[in-house]
C-alpha cells in the first residue's frame, strides 16, 4: 500500500458520523494530495456520500477533524464551518449525486450564480450595481467571459441561452462540474459524475477531469462506481466499506487488493468455502449479535469490526436506506442467499484490514 501524500491538501482524521444508532462512517482517516485526483470508492451504502457531506459542511461530523490547507498557508477546519462558508472561503466546490442545477435558469445564468460572491463584492453589495458603477460592469463582463470559457471547455457554448433543465443528462452533468469550477475552487468534490453516462460521454468526462487537474491545477475528490473513470484517471484511491477504509493506494495496488475484490465481488472460485462452512459463519453472524444486544454493548463501540458481522451489516445497510436503526432478527433472515456466500468473506477481510491498517 502506498503512503499518504507528503503535502496533503485535505486531511480527514478519525472522522466518525453517527445517525442515531447507525454508524455511517467509523473512524475514517485519509488524505487527498495537492493536484491529485483522489477517488473514493466502495459498494453502495459504504458511506461515500456521507464523507462528502461532512467535508462540504452539509453534515456536522460526530467526531474527527477535517483540515484543508491552501498553498498560501491558510488552514481551514472544515468540521467547524457552515456549508456556504466552506464553499466561499475554504474554496471547496461540489456536485451532487442527483444533479442539482437551477433548471429554470439558463445555462449561462447557472454559471453566473456560481460567481455570486465575486459579483456581490463588485456590485458593492447591490448598491453600486443599482447605479451601474463602472467596477461592477467590468466584473460582470469578466464573469461572463469566465462562463464563456467554461462553456467552451465543456462544449456547451451553443446552448448557453437555453434553460439548464432542457439539456440532455450528460450535458447537465458536465454543466454542474463547470458551475462548480466557476466558484474558483481549490478542491473539487464530484459525487458520481459518470453515473448514467454512456462510454463516449464518460470518456469526455475523463478528459475534462484531467484537464481540470493538469491545466487548472485543482485537486479533485471523486466518488465513482464507473471503474473506467476511476482506474483511468485517479492518482490515489481510497476504498470504503461499511463506513471504514478497507484499502488505499494507486489504482494498480487497489485493483489487486484482496480485501477490495472481496468487498466488491465476494469470494473467488478457488477459495470458495464449502456450504457447511458458509452456513456456520452465517449462523455465527446471526446469533452473535443477538447475544451482544442482550449484553448491552452499544452499536458503534470500540470492537465494531467484530460485532458488525455480515448479517448485521446488511441490516445496517437496510437501515441506512430507511434511516431507522432496524435491528430486528427477522430482517436479517430475509437476506438473499447469494449474499450469504459473499458476505462472510467480506467480513473476514474487513476484520483483517481493520486490524492491519484501518486505525492509524
Amino acid at each position, binding site marked *: 500500500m502506498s503512503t499518504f501524500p507528503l503535502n496533503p491538501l485535505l486531511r480527514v482524521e478519525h472522522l466518525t458520523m453517527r445517525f442515531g444508532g447507525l454508524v455511517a462512517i467509523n473512524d475514517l482517516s485519509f488524505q487527498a494530495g495537492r493536484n491529485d485526483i483522489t477517488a473514493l470508492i466502495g459498494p453502495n451504502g459504504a458511506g461515500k456520500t456521507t464523507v462528502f457531506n461532512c467535508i462540504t459542511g452539509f453534515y456536522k461530523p460526530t467526531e474527527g477533524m477535517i483540515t484543508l490547507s491552501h498553498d498560501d498557508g491558510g488552514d481551514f477546519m472544515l468540521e467547524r464551518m457552515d456549508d456556504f462558508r466552506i464553499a466561499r472561503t475554504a474554496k471547496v*466546490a461540489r456536485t451532487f449525486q442527483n444533479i442539482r442545477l437551477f433548471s429554470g435558469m439558463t445555462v449561462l*445564468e447557472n454559471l453566473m450564480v456560481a460567481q455570486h460572491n465575486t459579483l456581490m463584492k463588485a456590485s458593492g453589495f447591490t448598491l453600486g450595481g443599482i447605479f451601474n458603477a463602472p467596477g461592477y460592469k467590468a466584473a460582470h463582463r469578466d464573469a461572463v467571459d469566465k462562463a464563456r470559457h467554461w462553456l467552451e471547455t465543456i462544449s456547451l457554448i451553443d446552448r448557453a441561452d437555453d434553460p439548464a433543465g432542457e439539456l440532455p443528462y450528460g450535458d447537465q452533468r458536465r454543466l454542474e462540474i463547470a458551475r*462548480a469550477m466557476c466558484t474558483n475552487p481549490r478542491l473539487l468534490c464530484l459525487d458520481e459524475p459518470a453515473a448514467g453516462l454512456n462510454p463516449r460521454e464518460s470518456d469526455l468526462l475523463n478528459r475534462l477531469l484531467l484537464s481540470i487537474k493538469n491545466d487548472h491545477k485543482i485537486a479533485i475528490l471523486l466518488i465513482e462506481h464507473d471503474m473506467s473513470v476511476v482506474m483511468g484517471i485517479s492518482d490515489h484511491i481510497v476504498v470504503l466499506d461499511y463506513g471504514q477504509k478497507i484499502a488505499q493506494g494507486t489504482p494498480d495496488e487497489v485493483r489487486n487488493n484482496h480485501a477490495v475484490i472481496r468487498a466488491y465481488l465476494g469470494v473467488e472460485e478457488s477459495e470458495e468455502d464449502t456450504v457447511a462452512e458458509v452456513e456456520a459463519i452465517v449462523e455465527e453472524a446471526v446469533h452473535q449479535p443477538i447475544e451482544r444486544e442482550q449484553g448491552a454493548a452499544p452499536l458503534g463501540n470500540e470492537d465494531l469490526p467484530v460485532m458488525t458481522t455480515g448479517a448485521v451489516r446488511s441490516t445496517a445497510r437496510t437501515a441506512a436506506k430507511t434511516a431507522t436503526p432496524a435491528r430486528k432478527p427477522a430482517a436479517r433472515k430475509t437476506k438473499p442467499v447469494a449474499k450469504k456466500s459473499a458476505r462472510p468473506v467480506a467480513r473476514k477481510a474487513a476484520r483483517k484490514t481493520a486490524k492491519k491498517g484501518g486505525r492509524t
Partner: protein
Amino acid sequence: MAGPAKDTKITQEQVALTPAEMAKDLLVTFLLALAILGPLVGLRTTSGSGTLILEYRPLWAFGMVAAVVAVRLLSLLYGMGKMAAQGRAAPQTAALATAKAKTAIDWGKFLAPTLLVLAVALPFIAMLFPQMERRIVDLGILVLTYVMLGWGLNVVVGLAGLLDLGYVAFYAVGAYSYGLLATRYFPAWFGEGILPWAFFVTLPIAGILAALWGMILGFPVLRLRGDYLAIVTLAFGEIIRIVLINWMDFTGGPNGVSGIPRPSFFGLPFDDSPGGFAATFGLSPKPIQRIVFLYYVILVLALITNYVTMKLRKLPIGRAWEALREDEIACRSLGINTTNTKLTAFAIGAMFAGFAGSFFATRQGFISPESFNFLESATILAIVVLGGLGSQIGVVAAAVVIVGFFEVFREMNFLKAILPEGFDPVQLRMLAVGLAMVLIMRWKPRGLVTSRDPTVYLKEKKAVSADLVGEGHG
C-alpha cells in the same frame, strides 16, 4: 418531457370522438346537471302562513340544465376543432413550448409600453366622462396600489420563492408610520410648517421602518421552510393587526388614526387658498386635482418599484433569489449565504409595502386596523399567483382583473335590468371574482404570464418555459 408526447396521444384519440361518444358525454352531463340543479333550483321552500311550502320550479331547473348541456356541447365541438388543428401540427416538443413562450415575450414587449401610455393618459381619458371622472381615477389609484403591492410581494414570492401570507403587516407598518409621524410627532418636533411636506419626508422613513420589520420578522422565521414559513408569516400579519387594535395609547386602537394630512403639490396645498395649487397655476380649484395628483404619485411609486425590481433581478442578488427558488442546497454549495439572501428579499419586499402603506394613509386620511386584515394579504398573494410567479406584467393584468372586477361590479346597476328580480349584481361580485380565479387557474395554472425572462444572455434572449421554472418551497 413526457408531458407533451402524452398530450399528442390524447389529441389523436379525441379527434376521433364519434357522435355516439359525444351523445354519451352529453347524457352524463345532463344527468349530473340534473342531479345537482334539480333539487337546488327546481325545489324551493317558501314560508307561507307559518309553515314551509315546497314550490316546484321545473322550468327554471330544466332551463339551467339545458344551458349546461349546451355549454358542454359547444366546448366539445370547440375542443375537437382545436385538437384537430393541433393533431395536424407536428408533435409538440419542449422546444416548441419555448418558442411559444418567446412569442409571448414579444407580445409582452408590445403590451408593456401600451399599458404605460394608457396609465399616464388615464386622468385625461377620464376627463372625457365628466360624471364618472372621479370614479375612474379613484379606481385607477386603487388598481395601481395593488399593482405596487403585487410587485413588492413578487420579490418575495415570485423571485425568492418564499411564501409570505402576512405581507399586509408591512403595509400596515408603512401606513401607521406615516399616520403617527404626521399627526402626532412632526407637528411637535418641527411645527405645523412641515405638514405639507410630511408625506414626502415620511415616505422613505416608512419604507425603512417596514424593511426593518421585515428583517426583525425574517431573522427567526427564515430557517423555516414551505408550509411552516407560510403559517408563521400569517401569524405575524395577525400579530401586527392585533397589536394595532390593542395598543390604545400609541395607535389609537380600533378608532385608528384620523386627520392624517393630505399630500400637497410639493408644498402647495390643494385648496382654494391664495397660496394653493389652483391659484398658483391659475386654475379654478377643484377636488379632482388632488385625486389626479395622488394618481400620479402612486403611478410613480409603482414604476419605481418595477424599475428597482427589474434592476435587482439582473444583479447578483436577484439571480441569487431566483437560484434560491430553484434549489437552496445547490445555492449553499456555491457559497451563497442563503439566510442573508432570503432576508434581503424579505426586507426589500417589505420596503415597497411600506411605501404603499404610506400612500394609502395619505390617500384615505384615516387608517384603522380594519384595513389590514388577512383578506388584504390573500388578495395581494392572489394577484401575484394569478399573474404568474415572478412576472411583472402578469401582476398588472391580475390586479386589473381582480381589483378592477371587484370594484366595477359595484357599478353594474344596469345588470339589474337583465337579471331576474332579486338578483343584486353587487352581491354577485365575490362569485364573479371567484369564478375568474377558477377560470384562470383552469386554463393558466401557472398564472397569466408563464414564461421567465433570462437575466443575462450571450447571443439570443430565449424565454424559459414555466414548466422548468421552480416554484420555491419556502
